[in-house]
């Protein structure tokens, strides 16, 4: 029983980080209905940024997060204005291909610059805390992952409030629901889309910076997180930010329970298996509105 609870708690902590990975996609894909297969590559850039700032300037990832988020916001805006705006009106195929091209381009530019070697961000604040555990009713909580999960959760809630409670967020939602009507009330759809891409890129890059504390950094790391993020957003349901959070926590739990009780090699297979089952029973996702 304790073992199961331990697995669930571990899964919830990972899930909070997955939520941060997926929420950028929830905005771009779920809310604004644009496809981005280079999502994980934005995350990879965040991880490389964390590694680079830590190895050259000695900046801790928890601080490096801020400049990286700003730079990646800019990159997201550039990707939208220079590439995605041109394919937005066309077939969804064009969007898929444009972002697959972006994926190959970003990934291999990093390969060209830094080679495919595995790198590790070491001697960070979180790494120094490793081994420190909190004992809670017989369940051990590793402090690094707990802190990371809480940061992820906090950022997620901030974003939720931004989208659900502020004028900017409401403008974003209005643009996604009816572009023409949004224009009539003085919202610039293009500015909104650019902002959505900026936010999406910045958030997933921050997730990458946090994950760089726990995962090795290499140019091909993105794709597995991209597909995981797609499964999470689709599972949570289009347009539902909170659905994304719950789906991400669920995915974290499925993974860690699979690792403990079934076969570790199949942890992603079980996630996608449950996605297929839930997707077939409820194609709009758990909390989707349409």
């Amino acid at each position, binding site marked *: 029983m304790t073992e199961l609870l331990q697995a669930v708690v571990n899964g919830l902590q990972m899930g909070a980080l997955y939520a941060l990975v997926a929420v950028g996609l929830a905005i771009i*894909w779920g809310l604004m209905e644009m*496809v981005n297969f280079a999502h994980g590559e934005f995350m990879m850039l965040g991880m490389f940024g964390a590694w680079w700032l830590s190895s050259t300037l000695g900046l801790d990832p928890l601080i490096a997060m801020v400049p990286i988020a700003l730079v990646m916001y800019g990159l997201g805006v550039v990707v939208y204005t220079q*590439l995605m705006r*041109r*394919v937005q009106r*066309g*077939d*969804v*195929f*064009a*969007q*898929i*291909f*444009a972002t*697959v*091209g*972006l*994926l*190959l*381009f*970003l*990934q*291999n*530019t990093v*390969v*060209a610059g830094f*080679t*495919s070697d595995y790198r590790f961000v070491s001697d960070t604040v979180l790494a120094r805390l490793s081994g420190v555990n909190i004992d809670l009713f017989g369940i051990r909580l590793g402090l690094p992952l707990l802190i990371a999960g809480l940061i992820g959760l906090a950022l997620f809630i901030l974003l939720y409030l931004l989208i659900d409670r502020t004028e900017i967020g409401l403008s974003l939602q209005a643009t996604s629901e009816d572009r023409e009507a949004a224009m009539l009330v003085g919202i610039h759809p293009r500015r909104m889309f650019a902002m959505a891409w900026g936010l999406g890129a910045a958030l997933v890059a921050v997730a990458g910076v946090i994950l760089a504390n726990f995962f090795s950094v290499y*140019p091909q790391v993105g*794709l597995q997180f991209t*597909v995981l993020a*797609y*499964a999470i957003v*689709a599972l949570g349901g289009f347009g539902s930010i909170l659905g994304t959070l719950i789906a991400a926590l669920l995915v974290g739990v499925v993974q860690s329970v699979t690792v403990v009780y079934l*076969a570790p*090699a*199949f942890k*992603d*297979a079980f*996630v*996608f*298996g449950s*996605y*297929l089952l839930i*997707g*077939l029973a409820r*194609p709009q996702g758990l909390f989707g509105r349409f």
Partner: protein
Amino acid sequence: MTTPAAAPARRRGSALGWAAALTGLTVAIVYPIPIQMSGYTYFQTVGFLVFLYAMLGIGWNFIGGLAGQFDFGPNIFLATGAYTAALLAVHFNWSPWLGFVGAILVSVVICALITFPVTKLRGHYFAIATVAMWMIAQPIGATWELINGSRGLFIPMKPATGLGEALITLQFPGRSKGLVYYYIALGLFIATVVLFRTVERSKLGYYFRAIRDDQEGAEAIGIDSRVYKTAARCLTAAVFATGGVVYCFWAQAVFPDQVLEMNWAILPMICTVLGGLGRLWGPLLGAIILIPIAQVMSATLGAGPLAGRGLDVIVYGIIIMGVAAGRPNGLLSLPWARWFGRTPAPGSGRAAAGAVEDAPARR
């Protein structure tokens, strides 16, 4: 369309088309011979890969181009085909030619079983479901004992005594291997072209396009979209399984991470879209442009400081983004006819633009 004036022009167009096809075929047949005589057979391998990817691209065109469903994981059928033929060769000593039959049958049955349930999903959801299948296939390939897990399967070596035997086992000594495999790929590519053309012009092809263009409308006239989407993906699976058999006998081994690699899914689609989605010759054009880039770059960079740094893929990325942003309907959708003065009639520019919407029906 059927006005008397337009009819002869079309006949002339089709005669030109036949001439172009014959010229292309002649070039394709003659191409490897001087290479064989020069002794540097590397470019036969490039040609082999061009036709292999063009064939897979046409295969992907069934589900992606004709039926309009985005399949992100056709490589699982390449893996199924490769493993089926390899198992038959390892355990029962079957020739690859029988292996083709077995591989196609197994892949089509598996495809039908796993695809029918997810045809309920549409658009992005279908695409993610195919990715999910691929993700599930990866650990199965790496751990299943029957197929030897990540240790892979090796095709037993059988030094042939004569040409006849070599043609049955598809194992060729030394320098003749590149030449023969080039012609095998060419032959299978032509077979795939014929298959695609036949399906495209049959009732099946019209059903596929009807579902792609308007699923509700197609269902209203009694087309069961789920059955025909499954059928389209089974055609894709059959072509990928064939490609898998060729690849596995060419490499003489199957490893799960190799046959389930993303390239087998992405490169055929990229070739197709670069050339023209849903068009018969789109995948070939795309493959002729893209495949040599990677091969020539990796050959010229050699062991230099920039080797293995993914420069070829950076070029792919730029080309793909450029095509997606500038010409999402592919190179074949450019108004070639007008540029070469074949249809000088007014409004032909608009006709070319119109051809974009129902690309598969034309040419």
